[in-house]
């Protein structure tokens, strides 16, 4: 009887250690997953600043739409003033182009077409091209913040020189 108790104790103890081990390893595995997520999330980015210097306003003649290929924005000089549009199609992210002969912005991928103000004319694009925040800095250069959308046609969305 006493022997059996000892034996049972022994079995229980073995089971306890087994559970301890496997449990630790499971936690370690879970921790490693969290750890991997933390590791894989970059802490710094080597990407150009979202704020783009578009130069002096007089570079853009009245009623012109100018594509800055590097930063993917349009600078539009309209009667109301200067404003900036994203040049990235809202459908699948292709870079659109300004077609002066058609007086519209066209996407080469799936044929979406937009007005000069970004409004959709036709095509699969679900939304109009978003407007970006634009302002003048102290040196008189136009700056565009690509990370900030602003309301289309709103007073503050234009720069008037």
């Amino acid at each position, binding site marked *: 009887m006493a022997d059996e108790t000892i034996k049972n104790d022994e079995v229980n103890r073995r089971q306890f250690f087994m559970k301890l081990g496997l449990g630790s390893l499971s936690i370690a595995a879970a921790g490693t997953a969290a750890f*991997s997520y*933390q*590791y*894989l*999330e970059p*802490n*710094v980015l080597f990407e150009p600043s979202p704020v783009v210097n578009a130069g002096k306003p007089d570079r853009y003649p009245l009623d012109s739409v100018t594509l800055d290929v590097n930063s993917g924005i349009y600078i539009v000089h309209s009667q109301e003033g200067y404003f900036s549009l994203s040049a990235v199609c809202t459908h699948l992210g292709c870079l659109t182009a300004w077609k002066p002969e058609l007086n519209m912005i066209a996407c080469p991928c799936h044929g979406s077409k937009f007005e000069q103000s970004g409004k959709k004319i036709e095509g699969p694009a679900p939304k109009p091209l978003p407007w970006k925040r634009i302002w003048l800095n102290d040196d008189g250069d136009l700056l565009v913040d690509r990370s900030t959308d602003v309301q289309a046609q709103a007073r503050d969305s234009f720069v008037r020189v």
Partner: protein
Amino acid sequence: MAKTVDQYLDDLRGTRVWRSIFRSGTGSSTLKRALAIQQNVFLHLFSTKVRTRMLSFSATWYLGTLTLGTFLILVATGIPLMFYYHPSVPQAYADTKDLQFVVSSGLFLRNLHRWSAHAMVFLVFAHMFKVFYRGAYRTPREFNWVIGVILLLMTLLLSYTGYLLPWDQLAYWAITVGSNIASAVPVMGEKIHFLLLGGNAVNANALLRFYVLHCMILPLAAMFFVAIHFWRIRKDGGLYSHDSEPAALRANVATDAAPAKEAQ
């Protein structure tokens, strides 16, 4: 009474899905245990039973196991490191710095990778000498010994190719010195040097070559040979032990028993 975790686990093990994945199931019967080894794609490289004597630390010092352990650590740390590493000059160095300074725990992973690599070279050497002194290369394990020598060379090559990747002064000059030894080979030395580096000096080409060798070719080759190495242990009769040798052979091997043999 609420079910315990164990009961839930037992229920889980009883499901069809579980059974369809893990054929053997658990249990303390010898059969179940043998099946656990035999029916696992990785474990079936081992025999289902080993000699009790071989479990003792002094028999093997677990050097083979530990070497495998370092290899596993190296794979587990090396793959995450690749996410932040561009094998280009001088970006490689900047990436190493970034791993050290801005990637969460990047420094830890790189440290672990580096020290494990050193540990693996050391353990492989130790393993080889231990096997030699135990005489475990003897028939029928000759070929497994040869595979072991190949694995030793691969370990050295893996460590050597990895040495260049941080693209710092230490790496650059160690590889320059090391690779110039290759050009000492008569007749074809220059060619080997040229092919190894992808040029005449340690430069961007060399870095890319070493990267591919270090991350693709050598690890795959090493895994291939490791599999054979393990499988051959089973096929050659399990871990070597003097006492498992036939008496006559053992008598020959254990020469301190020679007088007794002559007496017979």
